[in-house]
């Protein structure tokens, strides 16, 4: 027992399993609509988590993660065309592999670039990938995209979940459960990775490339690996997104999606996975909440629709001004300061910058 509790990796693994079991019950208690919202938050958080690791731990700014999501989504959609079927695990693994491969190619190019140039190269990707879908209309469905049939719940899993929760598992519940499971597993892997030797190398490359190189770290390889991991997360998110939204269409993967991911990361706090989750939840739930609040206050449909981007923009400005390290990035150190008031502030921040992930 003591050994389990003292090994961080095992401890996290156990926590993840506990979290999974609890989430199965929690999701079961939600309405269909809430379940679909949970799925949306989960897939956005997976992509944001991957991006957060890339930016926060490795210092590479990608504006093209929406394009990787598109690749994941189209991979799943293509595998389900013309009535074809495949188990969900196969679909998601395929989405991850294909995206990781594309990510590897982009990463090799991006590893030669630095700072704003990486952002520029990935920005081009975000613009070009949806256009490809429009151009290759026969294969990729053009503007309307490819329809994705929502997956059926496997009988064995339906029975297992029925034994646990005592209710039939609907499609949205199944999707929400799978999305949350993917989220927990992804975050567990990212967390373990960032706390390992690889993660320390990523941070070293971010903080001082020259020093890292002198310490024997291969800069290019470190950047490429981090980029591939991050792209693979986006691919998984894209695959889930295709199943949850039942469509893979170019207009769902515009530059706005890439910027939304970046916004989730900035809102939550660079390099923190909890922050990515909070940012994703905020970006998914806030617009709906604001729009509905607007309508119930008597605004016209048009006005309340326009209210959502306004409030989102103002929230982002407020967070950047008041909590420049993001919600989690600013609040967590503040809480810690409260607990240990004697610690010198500057020391705390440097430590947390390294520790949070």
């Amino acid at each position: 027992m003591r050994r389990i509790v003292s090994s961080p990796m095992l401890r996290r693994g156990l926590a993840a399993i506990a979290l999974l079991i609890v989430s199965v019950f929690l999701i079961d208690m939600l309405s269909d609509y809430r379940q679909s919202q949970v799925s949306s938050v989960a897939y956005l958080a997976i992509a944001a988590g991957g991006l957060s690791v890339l930016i926060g731990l490795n210092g590479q700014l990608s504006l093209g993660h929406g394009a990787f999501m598109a690749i994941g989504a189209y991979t799943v959609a293509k595998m389900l065309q013309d009535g074809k079927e495949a188990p969900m695990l196969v679909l998601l693994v395929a989405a991850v592999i294909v995206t990781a491969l594309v990510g590897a190619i982009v990463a090799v190019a991006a590893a030669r670039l630095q700072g704003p140039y990486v952002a520029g190269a990935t920005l081009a990707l975000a613009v070009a990938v949806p256009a490809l879908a429009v151009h290759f209309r026969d294969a990729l469905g053009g503007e309307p995209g490819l329809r994705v049939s929502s997956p059926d719940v496997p009988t064995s899993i339906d029975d297992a979940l029925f034994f646990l929760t005592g209710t039939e598992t609907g499609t949205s519940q199944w999707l929400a459960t799978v999305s949350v499971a993917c989220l927990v597993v992804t975050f567990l892997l990212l967390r373990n990775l960032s706390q390992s030797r690889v993660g320390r190398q990523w941070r070293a490359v971010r903080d001082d490339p020259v020093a890292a190189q002198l310490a024997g770290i291969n800069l290019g390889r470190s950047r490429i690996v981090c980029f591939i991991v991050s792209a693979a997360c986006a691919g998984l998110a894209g695959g889930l997104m295709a199943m949850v939204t039942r469509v893979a269409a170019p207009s769902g993967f515009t530059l706005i999606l890439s910027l939304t991911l970046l916004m989730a990361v900035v809102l939550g706090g660079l390099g923190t996975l909890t922050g990515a989750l909070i940012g994703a939840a905020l970006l998914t739930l806030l617009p709906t909440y604001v729009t509905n609040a607007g309508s119930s206050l008597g605004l016209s449909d048009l006005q309340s629709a326009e209210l959502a981007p306004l409030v989102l923009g103002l929230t982002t400005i407020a967070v950047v001004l008041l909590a420049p390290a993001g919600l989690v990035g600013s609040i967590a150190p503040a809480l810690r300061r409260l607990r240990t008031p004697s610690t010198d502030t500057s020391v705390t921040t440097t430590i947390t910058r390294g520790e949070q992930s």
Partner: protein
Amino acid sequence: MSRNHLRAALAASTAAVVLAGCGAGGRDASSGGDSEGGDTTGVTDTTISVGTHQPLTGVAAPGYSEINTGMKAYFDYVNEAGGIHGRKLELTVKDDGYNPTNTSKVVDELVLKDNVFAILGGLGTPTHTAVVDFLNKEEVPDLFVSSGAQLWGNDPEARPWTFGWQPDYEIEGKIMGQWIKENKPNAKVGLFLQGDELGGDGEKGLRQYVDDQIVERVEYASGNTDIGPQISKLKASGADLVVGFNTPSYTALSQLTSMKLGYDPTWIYTNVGSDPKLAGELLSTFSKGKVKGGGALDGAMTTEYIPGVGEESPWVDLWEKVWKEQGGKGELTNYRVYGMSQAYLFASALQASGKDLTRERIVDVIEKDAKNWPGPNLAPFRYSADSHLGISGMRMAEIKGLKTTPLTDVLVTDIGDAEITKDETDVAAVAPPKDGLPDVEVLK
């Protein structure tokens, strides 16, 4: 570490208790939400709640964002008169920004959270494509989709809950093609097409009649605003009659680009892209005021399937009255007329369904009876057990100022090689009832 032990033990025992409590054993017979007569979700004794997805923000918002205000105005007009069979009509409008991913989310919200009775006039081909399977799986009536794609009506067996509304782009292309063949047999025809169903189906219809007259075809991708290369290509081909299957923004862009290049063919625009008011406004915006909007499309031709603003029609008089009494800000536009026409058809369907309204009932009634109901549509609907495609025909018209003048009778046809004939029914001649409420018999 003893504290950690305690915590672990506590967590484990809690989990065990929870699991034990949940081991639910055998299954009960599931109890569905349907009553024996059918699904009455969204219907109460005094209200019927319906929802729609519309682009209120984003690229497709100009023009299209007005459609729901027309629907709402007519619903309010009906409610003022006591509703249909004593039930008031409630419309929930959700903005999807013309993004299929958002459409999927807002339709989830409408169906799963707001529990609407039906989706009415969901707008857009890419957007509605994302939800059509979901709506049919959930067995939600998906009525009068605001798009001319054939997906909504060509396979009622696969999509029994979905009904199209406006004429599809293929029959529009056929009717245009026949008119060109008969009236401009020597014209060199160029095609200006949006790279999706709109352009593809339109071209298919046109080629049935004027395949040998077509000298050039160009495509643009929606979102790319530089169409200089395409227009240059048309100019170089010597085409003197250009048929545009495009959206309103591209009507304005094509006019502006042609002016810049000194190219002046006769234009025929699809009904989708030909609203002279909107195209004029966009033209004036895109040219930063250098081109005056009014009369920008004078001399261009288009098609019509419902009477528009400014035309002599008792229906337009009714819409003017409805908008004056129940409308919000702004004046009556063709987009609001479009929304009101859909709302009128929906009200007719509710009227014909009778007091015992269910989701199954309204779909059945529309399939069997809607082609007989009087309405603003110039030609009858094609609804039957074999087809859920919408209005069966249209007429060619010329644009002058903000109005149109008819060039032909109302012509009807169907997809494929169905013949084009003059509409023999008198649908277009029927005036609305005096009180403006649909007057149809309850279907037995």
